């Protein structure tokens, strides 16, 4: 049996994993990255529109700061987010953007003077400040009060991933490509690494490490219609779940992006609407202002997606042979803008639809897009249930996004989490108490277990076909666990999924190759995907309220009284067909921003009994600070101290044109 020993095992070679690896490497620890694909192919590259950070460079971003980014993020999350984590995030995001700039990221920049833009369907002239000339530009995105989304045309994720990946290469960080982690090696509440499989040769080996990081992205492929890449099957989520001890948080929180091209589900960026694109129905009418007079097309994604489906249900969809859709119209942005700022969108429209988006409308319909749920961790990124197990990025639930993530906050989260969690992992490895005697016997047992299980699969004469089971699961998820959920559909879907899970124990495989074998891979993955699907289904069924992207037609109100809490899903018994759920309450009395109306969407939530008192307390602290002439930092500190939670090197204030840094050391 081959054993690889390293300090930090990073599972996943996307932005979060690579940035965490760089972080620990900078602190002198060795990192090994396992990646299903060459890292630059990771799904991070598909992020188009941009990354939120309150730089406040553009004129429409003037006055922006951490406070506003924080409030937008918490409102976006429908108060599901951990506000401490949201604070840590918004303070680090500008640093992440500037670090990337110093590493070579080709951020789009500001030209001083007049420029013509489209705002709310109207041509408007904006005048960029002279002293902002050459600084990083921001565009508008949904659910934000200021223009805050930094971008590189509409290939932001690609450019970020290449920048970070090249920095990892520069530091000589080892990446094992086409290697999949099959299970975590753990004992007595301590994680020691993972059992891995080479997808080309089939070799199974163990990777032992002081710290293990899950940074495997989302689980969009549980759904039939998704913007996610084919590798986004939630296998990192499954690694944690299958330990039986480390739970997943809020798996029922699944985001649907308003503009997946129809019917393939390929993403066209929110930047289209941020830059002035509008949604139209079969009549060609712009309908969002009727539903959301304030934010219109730029309400949060959960709200826009829901309104679109609602509009289709009312009979306003465009009929096609694949079903109904709506239109995204960016023609008024003009050819020049599209060819410079939305060029990936243009390429996608040309290649997959055969249309020129400067001339014609784009057929769109909401598609699964983001997994808010993930491996539940503390603010340090470590699982409180399994020492030495960390998670970062989309695979984690630390929990920045609550029940709905804002556009532009995901690629931001990947690098920010990589920076923060990377430091905490390095601290963890620095601590002599955390050094390990390589548990070779345990590793051997774990490797043998995986080998036996795959051998049994290969030898099986089972009746079931893995690809077909997967397709059935995706169909059920899209039908029953989508944008509109109802007890009947959820229950029905759950029963079907349970049956599929049982059937997945009887999969047969025709090709017997031990090495590259897509059927074998599909077989062991579909079993894990079904468990994840069931954690979504069960969590959604139990949560009898509507919050963010989780919308129950039979319980349309957000219910803070009963449900201001995070779902935890454990899978303690391998033979079970449902996860065990428990809940973690959010503490209203400590919130900087107590629950209220989001500023868009329905205005009908049920109050938490402690909200009023907390709101009163917050108001009192605010007015007191105001009368005393305290600055925003002091006020924030009084409302919800968090700075101590950040690694020391990330605690500094962020400089802005209108907010110069004093010359402090």
């Amino acid at each position, binding site marked *: 049996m081959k054993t690889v020993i390293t300090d930090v095992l990073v599972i996943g070679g996307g932005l979060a994993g690579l940035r965490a690896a760089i972080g620990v490497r900078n602190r002198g620890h060795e990192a090994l990255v396992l990646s299903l694909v060459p890292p630059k192919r990771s799904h991070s590259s*598909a992020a188009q529109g941009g990354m939120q950070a309150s730089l406040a460079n553009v004129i429409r971003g003037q006055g922006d700061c951490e406070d506003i980014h924080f409030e937008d993020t918490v409102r976006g999350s429908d108060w599901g987010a951990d506000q401490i984590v949201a604070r840590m995030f918004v303070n680090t995001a500008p640093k992440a953007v500037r670090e990337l700039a110093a590493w070579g990221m*080709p951020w789009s920049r500001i030209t001083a003077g007049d420029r013509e833009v489209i705002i709310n369907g109207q041509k408007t002239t904006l005048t960029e400040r002279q002293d902002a000339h050459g600084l990083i530009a921001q565009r508008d995105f949904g659910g934000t009060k200021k223009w805050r989304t930094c971008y590189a045309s509409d290939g932001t994720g690609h450019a970020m991933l290449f920048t970070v990946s090249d920095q990892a290469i520069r530091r000589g960080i080892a990446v094992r490509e086409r290697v999949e982690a099959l299970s975590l090696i753990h004992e007595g509440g301590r994680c020691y690494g993972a059992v891995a499989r080479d997808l080309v040769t089939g070799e199974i080996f163990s990777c032992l490490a002081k710290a293990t990081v899950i940074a495997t992205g989302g689980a969009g492929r549980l759904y039939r219609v998704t913007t996610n890449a084919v590798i986004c099957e939630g296998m990192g989520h499954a690694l944690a779940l299958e330990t039986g001890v480390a739970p997943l948080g809020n798996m029922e929180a699944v985001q649907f992006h308003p503009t997946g091209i129809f019917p393939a589900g390929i993403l066209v960026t929110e930047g289209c609407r941020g830059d002035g694109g509008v949604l139209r129905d079969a009549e060609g009418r712009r309908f969002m202002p009727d539903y959301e007079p304030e934010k219109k097309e730029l309400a949060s994604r959960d709200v826009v997606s829901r309104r679109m489906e609602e509009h289709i249900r009312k009979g306003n969809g465009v009929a096609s042979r694949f079903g109904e859709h709506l239109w995204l119209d960016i023609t008024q942005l003009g050819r020049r803008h599209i060819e410079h700022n939305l060029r990936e969108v243009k390429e996608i429209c040309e290649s997959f639809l055969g249309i020129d988006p400067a001339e014609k409308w784009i057929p769109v319909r909401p598609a699964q897009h983001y997994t808010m749920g993930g491996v539940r961790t503390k603010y340090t990124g470590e699982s409180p249930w399994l020492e030495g197990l960390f998670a970062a990025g989309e695979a984690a639930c630390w929990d920045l996004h609550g029940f709905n993530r804002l556009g532009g906050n995901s690629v931001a989260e990947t690098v920010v989490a990589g920076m923060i969690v990377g430091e905490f992992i390095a601290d963890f490895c620095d601590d002599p108490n955390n050094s390990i005697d390589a548990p070779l016997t345990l590793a051997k047992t774990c490797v043998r277990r995986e080998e036996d299980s795959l051998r049994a699969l290969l030898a099986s004469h089972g009746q079931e076909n893995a*690809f077909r089971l997967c397709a059935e699961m995706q169909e059920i998820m899209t039908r029953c666990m989508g944008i509109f959920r109802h007890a009947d559909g959820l229950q029905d879907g759950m029963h079907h999924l349970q049956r599929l899970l049982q059937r997945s124990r009887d999969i047969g495989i025709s090709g017997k190759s031990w090495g590259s074998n897509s059927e074998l891979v599909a077989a062991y993955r579909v079993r894990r995907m079904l468990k994840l699907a069931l954690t979504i289904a069960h969590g959604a069924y139990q949560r009898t309220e509507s919050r963010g992207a989780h919308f129950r037609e039979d319980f349309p109100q957000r219910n803070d009284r009963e449900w201001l809490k995070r779902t935890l899903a454990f899978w303690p018994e391998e033979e079970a067909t449902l996860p065990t759920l428990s809940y973690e309450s959010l503490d209203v009395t400590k919130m900087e921003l107590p629950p209220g109306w989001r500023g868009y969407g329905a205005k009908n939530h049920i109050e938490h009994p402690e909200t009023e008192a907390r709101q009163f307390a917050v108001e009192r602290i605010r007015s007191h600070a105001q009368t005393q002439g305290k600055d925003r930092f002091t006020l924030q500190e009084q409302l919800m101290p968090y700075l101590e939670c950040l690694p020391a090197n990330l605690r500094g204030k962020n400089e802005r044109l209108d907010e110069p840094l004093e010359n402090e050391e």
Partner: protein
Amino acid sequence: MSRQVIFNILRYNPQLPNVTPHLQRYLLEAADGMTLFIALNEIREHQDATLQFDFVCRAGICGSCAMLINGRPRLACRTLVADLPDENTLAPLPFFELIGDLSVNTGKWMRGMSERLSVWLHAQEMEVDTRRIEERMDAETAEAVYELDRCVECGCCVAACGTARMRPDFVGAVGLGKIARFRADPRDMREDADFYELIGDDTGVFGCMSLLACHDVCPKTLPLQTQIAFLRRKMAAQTIKSAGKKTSLR
């Protein structure tokens, strides 16, 4: 009646050296909007689970699925079956290490190339104070850098390259394009003398025979023709400069 399309796929798995390379024929019913991503998955799921190929984003963004489609390197995910003839040949990209069937190891080659050409930003200062306002850059310069940064390392340019066919150590248009990208970046402190050390020979810019199939096949339509020509001029000038220096030293 719907259209039947034939795919003759080059099959070979180096893990099973006893099976000689051969073309295997698959028949598929074309559907509306069907891309090669959909077609190949359909073949794998319904006809032959042993078929190997690579897709990741299936949206033309990640560059995983480059292959020879009727002899031409292209991204399979962006190829519509409706645009193909009734009978087609699919083969793996040449030049790269074969993993099996249509899957090749571009990742390993690209990492080697990146290390060899040190294609990362060589900034003056390694550590910046990230609390401070960023360095300025003109919008046009930033866009010009982004233009070259759009490369997805799919390998099409190398697979189509005449030089690469003869010189396995040629850095390819992808490598030259990356040098051009960092050369265009005002944050990079390297000078032509430094770039000359990396690409100033036949494995680099002087190996290019200007056949420029790279330019024709690039799925991101990178301006490879002008960039390579420009680099060659600069590097040739550098040759003269350094030759002059050496002479004067003597």
